[in-house]
């Protein structure tokens, strides 16, 4: 820039400062504050705030519900990564490589659940699973599998997979689009050369498509892990509130209940820190596993 340095700095301050200040107040402060509050026993009124050191964390260590919640969180992470990536990759390849005329129709339809609110999705699927008026049981009854019909969300063994299905349902479109973006960048000549060499479509998929869209696949997997650990609770809270018992509890729903329903804000803050730690460790480990040299073309 060719302005005098004083007006240049004024301009930069104008551009950067207001945003950064608001960011400090509404993003950085709450995150550091979350760490700070986790060392207190606190019911929300400032008079009742007592410093208790690591007691909240010791309590977490002995809390059997939080253990269940972490396991459930990882169940969602695992099932979502496998379910979403398999289907998204399949659909992305099918819609880009296989000259399907109605591909734009599928692309629009498959992305559609991504624009819906998680609350709406949760309520809708709660209905779908409803023992009396839901279409799942109604369908099972119609095809004669009456024994299979059950209150899906009220059943301790079936509640987790039942919540995972709408989570996958709602997630595929976005990742399909990301992978399609990756595939569109792969030079066509590679496939033409492979055709001439007589490589089957399956071989082309494994030896050309997967390595070349690996950056998109990797980004997608990491993104699913992060959003799952930080966001699964919305669906859980709407559909079951963590129940029956604590069968579908995840870390986020447990935090919400402890803090905003039972007013144990210090303990809730400690759960928040736990979510952060678990997310960071999981992302680091996954990054290590997914590490693969970047392919040049």
């Amino acid at each position: 820039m060719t302005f005098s340095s004083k007006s240049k700095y004024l301009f930069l301050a104008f551009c950067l400062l207001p945003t950064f200040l608001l960011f400090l107040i509404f993003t950085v402060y709450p995150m550091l504050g979350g760490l700070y509050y986790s060392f207190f026993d606190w019911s929300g009124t400032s008079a009742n705030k007592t410093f208790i050191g690591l007691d909240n964390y010791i309590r977490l260590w002995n809390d059997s519900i939080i253990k269940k919640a972490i396991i459930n969180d990882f169940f969602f992470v695992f099932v979502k990564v496998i379910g979403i990536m398999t289907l998204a990759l399949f659909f992305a390849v099918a819609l880009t490589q296989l000259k399907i005329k109605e591909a734009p129709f599928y692309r629009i339809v498959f992305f559609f659940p991504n624009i819906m609110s998680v609350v709406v999705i949760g309520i809708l699927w709660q209905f779908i699973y409803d023992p009396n008026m839901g279409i799942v049981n109604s369908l099972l009854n119609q095809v004669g599998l009456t024994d299979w019909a059950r209150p899906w969300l009220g059943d301790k063994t079936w509640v987790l997979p039942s919540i995972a299905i709408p989570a996958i349902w709602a997630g595929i479109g976005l990742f399909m689009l990301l992978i399609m973006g990756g595939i569109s960048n792969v030079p066509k000549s590679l496939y033409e050369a492979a055709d001439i060499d007589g490589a089957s479509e399956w071989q082309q998929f494994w030896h050309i498509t997967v390595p070349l869209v690996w950056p998109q696949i990797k980004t997608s997997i990491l993104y699913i892990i992060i959003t799952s650990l930080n966001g699964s609770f919305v669906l859980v809270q709407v559909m079951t509130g963590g129940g029956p018992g604590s069968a579908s509890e995840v870390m986020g729903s447990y935090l919400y209940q402890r803090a905003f329903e039972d007013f144990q804000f210090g303990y809730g803050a400690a759960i928040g820190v736990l979510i952060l730690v678990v997310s960071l460790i999981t992302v680091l480990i996954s990054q290590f596993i997914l590490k693969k040299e970047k392919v040049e073309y």
Partner: protein
Amino acid sequence: MKVVSQILVRIPLILWAFIVIFPLIWMFMGAFKSNAEIFTSPWSFPTDFSFTNFERAWNDYNIGRAFLNSFFVTVLGSFLTLLLSIPTAYALERVRSKFGEVLVNVYLASMMIPSVLGWIPLFFLLMKFNLLDNLWALSLVYAISHVPFTIFILVGFIGNIPKELEEAAVVDGMSPYGILFKIVTPLIKSGIMTVTILNAISYWNEFFMALILLQTESKNTLGVAMNLLKIDAQYDSAWGVLFAGLCIAVIPVIIFYSIFQRHIVKGMTEGAIK
């Protein structure tokens, strides 16, 4: 052989399209049905298309009010996000410095940290400022939460603007503010569109911040109101009304999406993740 594989590939595609569409059709049909119809004939078309359920959801269950509140928060939040992000993105892209790099990394890092961690302090911060139950404050919280993401998308678009344009404007005596708002901002219109569409959809759909930060029923946004409607409908057995409420929450996004879906796809495939 080709024909067989073409058919085989279409089976999962058609199946998934059905799995996506059917629940939505079921929801729309349910919105026109009476309770009895919902129970006895879950698969059939409604016998008469009356809008009673929609009227009841809109008037008796506060969905109308919530709709307007969501609209307000979405528009104001999207506008504030741009107001906060465009200058920062411009400064960060055009003035390369140590400080700028640190700032970029701080914004980037904040995207990786679960927002759940900040809920409790944020709640008490807004309480201290008397900003709980305030739609302006909620819009601001939304806007700031999406600032990092918006900056990253816009930096890419600003990077594509030829520097010569700005240099010519400087020669013509234009101030940096003029360059930012009169030259750069119009040139990144397509980036602004993409990012605003994505922001607006997430503000319209947001649930948890609104649940925590809003308190009175007249302030509720659609997400919170839908959750309440679900609980009320269970007591009143007003299932058709609940379906109608779901439709009211989804229809605007469907319309918005049909108009702008090209931009979403474009932004997604050309934008941030390369």
